[in-house]
């Protein structure tokens, strides 16, 4: 049974078609890569799935729950997590507080409990902090828990953002270019982190990425977009040699001139 189903989704912005008839099915504990040249619509696809831009047409379901038309916060509450191309950590919070905020939907705290600092609230806060620390340990960042989010390096911030998205135990995690700007070492770490997320936590990942080496290495299946359309889908080996994909990246003339790798 597929966890995330995207069927015939299309969206245009002011006359410019960003996505057209995109189909995608994400199974349980699967890592799906979404690649394509610039402007292909990859981030748009993520925005459509998580509700920031509702599609003009099509269906999206998460564990058979329809998502189209719901507010982004409602979609997140149904079990969809997300990171962003430009890391969006909360600048006013420490690393631990950032990750704890990820538990928002699962927190057992009422308004009155918060205002009067009830025993239940104190217990909930302590539990949230404990889970936050556990998540930081999972991603290997526990030593930074009291640092302000902005004090961390770029690569570290990206990992914290993943931890924050992961702590609420989403069914599906959307990662928007997690490897951008990272050194080779860091990319290897992100690779193994994604595997652990899939294997140890059973989370399905939809990975938008430009670093092809990472995509080929970690993904179970890959979808290729070009100009908003799906031009290929399959296992990494097949995508690597698919002529339509090569053409999309290199262009017609170069493709004709160069042999298939």
């Amino acid at each position, binding site marked *: 049974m597929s966890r995330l189903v995207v069927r015939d989704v299309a969206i245009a912005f002011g006359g410019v078609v960003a996505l057209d008839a995109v189909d995608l099915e994400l199974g349980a504990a699967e890592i799906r890569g979404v690649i394509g040249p610039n402007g292909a619509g990859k981030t748009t696809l993520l925005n459509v799935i998580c509700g920031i831009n509702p599609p003009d047409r099509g269906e999206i379901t998460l564990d058979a729950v329809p998502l189209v038309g719901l507010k982004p916060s*409602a979609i997140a509450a149904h079990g969809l997590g997300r990171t962003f191309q430009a890391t*969006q950590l909360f600048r006013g919070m420490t690393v631990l507080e950032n990750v704890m905020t990820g538990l*928002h*939907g699962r927190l057992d705290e009422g308004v009155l409990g918060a205002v009067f*600092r009830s025993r239940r609230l104190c217990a909930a806060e302590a539990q949230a902090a404990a889970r936050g620390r556990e998540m930081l340990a999972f991603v290997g960042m526990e030593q930074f828990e009291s640092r*302000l989010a902005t004090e961390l390096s770029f690569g570290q911030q990206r990992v914290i953002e993943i931890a924050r*998205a992961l702590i609420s135990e989403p069914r599906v995690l959307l990662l928007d270019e997690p490897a951008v700007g990272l050194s080779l070492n860091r990319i290897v770490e992100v690779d193994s982190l994604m595997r652990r997320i899939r294997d140890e936590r059973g989370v399905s990942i939809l990975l938008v990425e430009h670093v092809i080496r990472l995509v080929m290495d970690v993904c179970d299946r890959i979808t290729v977009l070009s100009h908003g359309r799906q031009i290929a889908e399959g296992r990494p080996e097949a995508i690597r040699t698919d002529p339509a994909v090569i053409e999309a990246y290199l262009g017609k003339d170069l493709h004709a001139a160069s042999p298939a790798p």
Partner: protein
Amino acid sequence: MRALAGRRNVVALAGLALLVLPPLANPYILYVANIALIYVILAVGLNLLLGYAGQFAFANAALFGIGAYATGLLQVRLGLPFWISFPAAVVITTLIGLVVALPALRLSGLYLALVTLAFAQFTQWLMLNWERVTFGAGGFKVPPLTFGSLQPALGLYYLSLLLCGLLVAGAWNTVRSGIGRALVAVRDSEVAAEALAIDLARYKAIAFSLSALYAGVAGGLYSAILSFVAPEGFDLFQMVVQFSMVVVGGLGSVWGSVLGAGLLVGLQEALRAFKGGQEIAFGLVLMGCIVFLPDGIISLVKRRARGWEEPLRAPDRRT
């Protein structure tokens, strides 16, 4: 020394001092202290909206006025006693604050500032022109409050002290909970907040209604302490004073607002001596504080004394 000046000690000391103040002070000092308590309530409430939730709204002075007018008018027009008018007025002000929140759901930044500014102007206009209800520019007298055998000024002081203590504690607790984190999340990145299942509309509404509630309480107390309600105290200048208290004290810091309110009330009284130069002096102090202490006075306290840490910091500097 640093440990001695820790928050627990200072708050306990201040609380004690405020409790025993009345018999030691003359009526004027008592009055100023009472005004300070009212402004602490205002500033702490405004900080929840401005500092924590990051909503740049100009409506608080108007809501302060609505609290005062509602408390007074319910007594004068409908003959209700203070002990019913006051809570009712707080409810009314909170509901109006919620209504103001509605545009906030669609607007941000300058546009929100302007809509709330327009609301404030409109409220002032109603206070001045809707004479049938609000008595117009001259204002109206409110029947003085009685506290049984207790002297009215004393009774009002202790009421203010009680409410101030409760509301500051409430804010402090709220900030240290998931709600506080949600508000800061809305401030720092709406899109990330939504991705974490934080309903923007809900938390903006919470922020607006909380600040309105605080403003309503402050307004009711204010009408009681003056025994008089008029449009003047609730205009744009009042809004500037409130913003100043929050920013000078320290945006995004509950204790900063307490400090800021206390200091600025003291400053206003001290400046009375300046006669003509009041405006200039206030302007210079304001500029000086902001330029030299951009993180507020509380940042000085945090540096020099221990135990003043708070979760969730002030809005970050723009880069």
